[in-house]
């Protein structure tokens, strides 16, 4: 297990390095931030000064080397726009996004797994067909449109829930969170559902497919032949087997939730990282874009590592083969 984790760590570092290169070069190809920074009336000398102050006078590989040098010390550069550390600006936005993503993940698990298992156990029932039809909608309706519809129905027409911002927050271990106040919770609800909809549909499909496969296995029939209650057969014997693919995909998708909360955050004006990256791209704030992408890469790598470890906890067979390798 230790050997396995160390090896995965080395692989992860390589992935992060390669990604940093791609991100840095990619960002340097699109657009010229100087145009955005310097006013139209500025003369050549002023322009040169700005370019020099941002370090853009050097060739790109020197810039990259500087960036890496700073990155290993935890310095991802200064925002062109805010003049502050890019990392700091992003980290300030992390709790909001994380809270939103976790809320969506929780919904996906709590709603998706039971619905999917039900649909798998009774594939021909009306309830099951309704669930599957609903999951197709969840898959195919564009997130931004659903978000707008939510705002229109629940915020504008019914006036039940607020449509923008995080609402009241309280500090939990130094981090501002919304879900502990009634107002924050009401603000969190719509964007979380909006973000979760796709994931719920996916978990339903995964859980259903897993259930359909597992339910016909001999060990399920044997469990019934042992006289176990249906409850125990489904909740223990079946669930533990279908959780393996569900955990894998959810783990990977959690990174996706964070990275792609961009749309939901923009629609609901949720002050998270997604909104920040959209703003930064519009103002060509390179350090923030690069720092954001690096953090996302890091999150993905860490989640993948955690999934592998979790996976081996769920499936004893994986554990054994890893020890051997």
């Amino acid at each position, binding site marked *: 297990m230790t050997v396995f984790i160390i090896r995965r760590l080395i692989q992860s570092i390589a992935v992060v390095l390669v990604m940093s290169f791609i991100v840095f070069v990619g960002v340097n190809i699109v657009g010229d931030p100087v145009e955005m920074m310097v006013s139209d009336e500025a003369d050549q000398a002023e322009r040169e000064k700005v370019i020099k102050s941002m370090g853009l006078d050097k060739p790109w590989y020197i810039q990259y080397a500087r960036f890496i040098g700073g990155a290993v010390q935890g310095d991802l550069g200064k925002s062109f726009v805010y003049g502050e550390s890019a990392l700091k600006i992003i980290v300030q936005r992390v709790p909001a996004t994380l809270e939103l993503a976790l809320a969506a993940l929780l919904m996906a698990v709590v709603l998706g797994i039971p619905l999917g298992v039900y649909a798998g156990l009774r594939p021909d029932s009306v309830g099951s067909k309704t669930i599957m039809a609903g999951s197709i909608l969840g898959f195919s309706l564009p997130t931004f449109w659903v978000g707008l519809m939510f705002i229109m129905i629940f915020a504008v027409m019914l006036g039940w829930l607020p449509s923008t911002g995080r609402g009241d927050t309280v500090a939990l271990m130094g981090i501002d969170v919304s879900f502990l106040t009634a107002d924050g919770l009401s603000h969190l609800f719509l964007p979380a559902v909006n973000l979760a909809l796709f994931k719920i549909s996916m978990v339903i499909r995964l859980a259903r497919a897993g259930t359909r496969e597992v339910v016909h296995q001999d060990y399920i029939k044997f469990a019934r032949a042992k*006289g176990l209650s249906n409850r125990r057969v489904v909740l*223990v014997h079946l669930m533990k087997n279908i959780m393996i693919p569900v955990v894998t995909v959810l783990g990977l998708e959690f990174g996706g939730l964070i990275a792609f909360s961009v749309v939901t955050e923009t629609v609901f004006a949720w002050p998270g990282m997604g909104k920040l990256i959209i703003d930064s791209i519009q103002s060509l704030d390179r350090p923030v874009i690069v720092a954001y992408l690096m953090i996302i890469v890091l999150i993905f790598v860490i989640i993948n590592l955690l999934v592998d470890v979790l996976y081996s906890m769920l499936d004893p067979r994986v554990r054994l083969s890893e020890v051997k390798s």
Partner: protein
Amino acid sequence: MTDTAPTLQVENLETHFFTKDGVAKAVDGVSFTVGRGEIMGLVGESGSGKSVTGFSVLGLVDPPGKVVGGKVLFQGQDLLSIKEEELRHLRGNRIAMIFQDPMMTLNPVLRVDTQMIETVQAHDASVSDDEARARSRDALGQVGIPSPEERLKAYPHQFSGGMRQRVAIAIALLNKPDLIIADEPTTALDVTIQGQILYEAQKLCRDTGTALIWITHDLAVIAGLADKISVMYAGRIVEQGGLGDVLDHPAHPYTCGLLGSVPGHNTRGKRLYQIPGMTPSLLKLPKGCAFKERCPHADAACETAPEITHPVEGRALRCAHPQVDLAGVAS
């Protein structure tokens, strides 16, 4: 529940599968009786309905299959008319089942102790974890698993096939059932392990009075194990009787064919007998006797389905052309 009632009495059991292409009569009027401590061999080719018969007794036939008729009397109580919850309490408790493929019967993600303790506690919630664990350990020891205490903590994939089947058998024995239905339990095992398991099964029945239904396609296994034998073909019992009677004087051409295709000491170098043709699809059985298209003795009389006859006490036969004069043999 009376003491005189046989452990299991199946009467005219009918289990049909309602498929898109029609109704498959997987079990079609099967009757047999198994008494205390008795071992019955249920023999037939693949698809003859022997496994479905076993599942029907336990009420474990999956849709689109359904038990549509007959009686399953377990110690005098009809299992087909009792509530699901009562039946659940009999399963794994009074009636246990052992499956064919030991690689598939244990849940791969649960430890052996979990799978054993739950079997005890499903039927008696008052048993403590420690007591259930002790019983599980004893059951593992009983089927010959070395260092059972440690093996309890293992996962199924850490056992070999033979050991897994022993675990499955230990699970079946946990609650000291009155009836065990064993569905080809030794088919996937090598011959030495098979021998040991057969020996233990026989000993168990003699010692505890447990009745045993041993489902198999292997006549050699039955010959060394059973007290009586039922031969199934296309969902029906075609011949039934005491082990020696049937093996020495087979009357149904199908039984004769099965026996003829077993290699013996005087068949070396010779081509073994083979029953011509294939098991017919249950969806399009021939009219009349289901075996007639493969039978060397078939004639016009076989166009009507033969009824079960009892030529002598303790024998049953479904054939218009018995190959031996059973009444003559018996006298």
